[in-house]
């Protein structure tokens, strides 16, 4: 088997591993934290803090 054929298989394998990593981590996070915490990000937090300090 030629080097480039091996690289093709390696690319398939690495892609699958990276995809699996993200999927498993995603499931873990979603089951470990509440939706309230995960979606608690609010826009303008820094601006609000700055404004309050100057008041």
């Amino acid at each position, binding site marked *: 088997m*030629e*080097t*480039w*054929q091996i690289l*093709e*298989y390696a*690319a*398939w394998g*690495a*892609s699958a591993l*990276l*995809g699996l*990593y*993200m*999927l498993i*981590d*995603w499931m873990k*996070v979603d089951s470990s*934290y509440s*939706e*309230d*915490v*995960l*979606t*608690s*990000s*609010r*826009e*303008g*937090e*820094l*601006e*609000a*803090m700055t*404004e*309050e300090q100057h008041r």
Partner: protein
Amino acid sequence: MADIDITSQTMDGMGPHGTKVGLLRVLGPAHVWALGVGIVLVGEYMGWNFAVGKGGAYAALIACWFAGILYTCVAMIDSEVTSTVAAAGGQYTQAKHIVGPLMAFNVGLYLVFAYTMLEAANAITAGYLISVVAGMTGYAGELDQRPFIILVIMFLAWLNYRGVLATLTFNLVITAIAFIAILVLFLSTSGVLGGGIMQHAALFEGHEMPYGWIGVLAAMHFGLWYYLGIEGTTQAAEEVRSPARALPFGTLAGIMTLLIAATLTWYVCSGVLPWEFLGDGVNGSVAPLFDTARLSGSNGLIWLLGFGTLFATLASANGCINDASRAWFAMGRDKYLPGWFGAVHPRYRTPYRSIIFLVPIALIFALGAPLDQVITFSILSGLLEYTFMPLNIIMFRRKWPLNSIKRGYEHPFHPLPAVTLLALCALTFFAVFLGYGTQLVAMIGFYIVVSLWFHFWRYRFVNRGAQFTMPWPKPQGY
């Protein structure tokens, strides 16, 4: 304190509290530069040369500089607005605060489409480049590009998933190498260091403007390719340590870098490659900088520009994943899209659901759509976005004049950049219509349909009070 005070008589919005997990503020101006230039620089390595095919080498240079003016206006306007509206989503968030929800929804979609399509185009290109390397190393069979295309998207998505600092530091390194490669090529081939190989006079003779001024107009479409994506710096707004300093600094340094890179690229390529070959990006010169290096006869330059081409492609795809996911995330957070997309990873502090969601979409386009169509839809979405910008800045200055709110940067000569940008956008729309009229009409039809869907259905789910978060005074006239 209550989360939001929408009844305030003096304030337009009150910054909400209560973030338990938010995006991480770790980036500096160099990362902003790397994000903007990283997305664009691939356009110098390939794509811009279609402008030569449309109108000859001089037309490509005129298009390069006119598009340069267009994007300088974009960078100036963006620097002012984003250093003031410093939140993820970039132009989407600007539109939400300054124009209104329907404009914001459309701009958000322009951003996601432009970046996801560009990411797909970059992955296709990376697959092609790897197959060229296989051929150059003596591989006799036909390389299957699909695993490499998928690997590029999966690896960069994984990098983005794991954290923004590593992602954009990676971009900084590979973008810097790609830019330095262009400088080295110029110095080595133009005669500054050693003997030059430039043949401008001989190559241009009799072919100065093969299609006249209409060719120059047609070249404008691909002239955008020299700079398309610099506006992406705004997506880092919520992750920079100092938005008021880093965003204008990174964005303006970025456009200066690109003006230099674009002009040098035109100079070295048009001085070595005949315009008929240079202008045919499919059967002629696919990667003009690399082809110029090959004609130089220097192995060192061939390797340097080979890596430069690959790095520029990866940097662009990487920046696109970063930007598309931030725009999608910001729309989810405001419930313009399902709020589920507004989640942040508690450990890596990235919009992980948006990153993962956009992976299969990029894969579908990368594996199933032709490259020129993917690029055209990306350019059209970008162009619609640039048309919004002049209207946005004019409204911004009217509603909140200078000194009414703190701005990180105030761009000079207002409204001249806005008017110039609007005029150049109109010109470019005409140029695109000449070559890709059907796609332009189809794209506008698509945005009209989704606008109707948003207006009549989706807007009822939007958290209307919470979307205006900047602690600004009420706008003038309201």
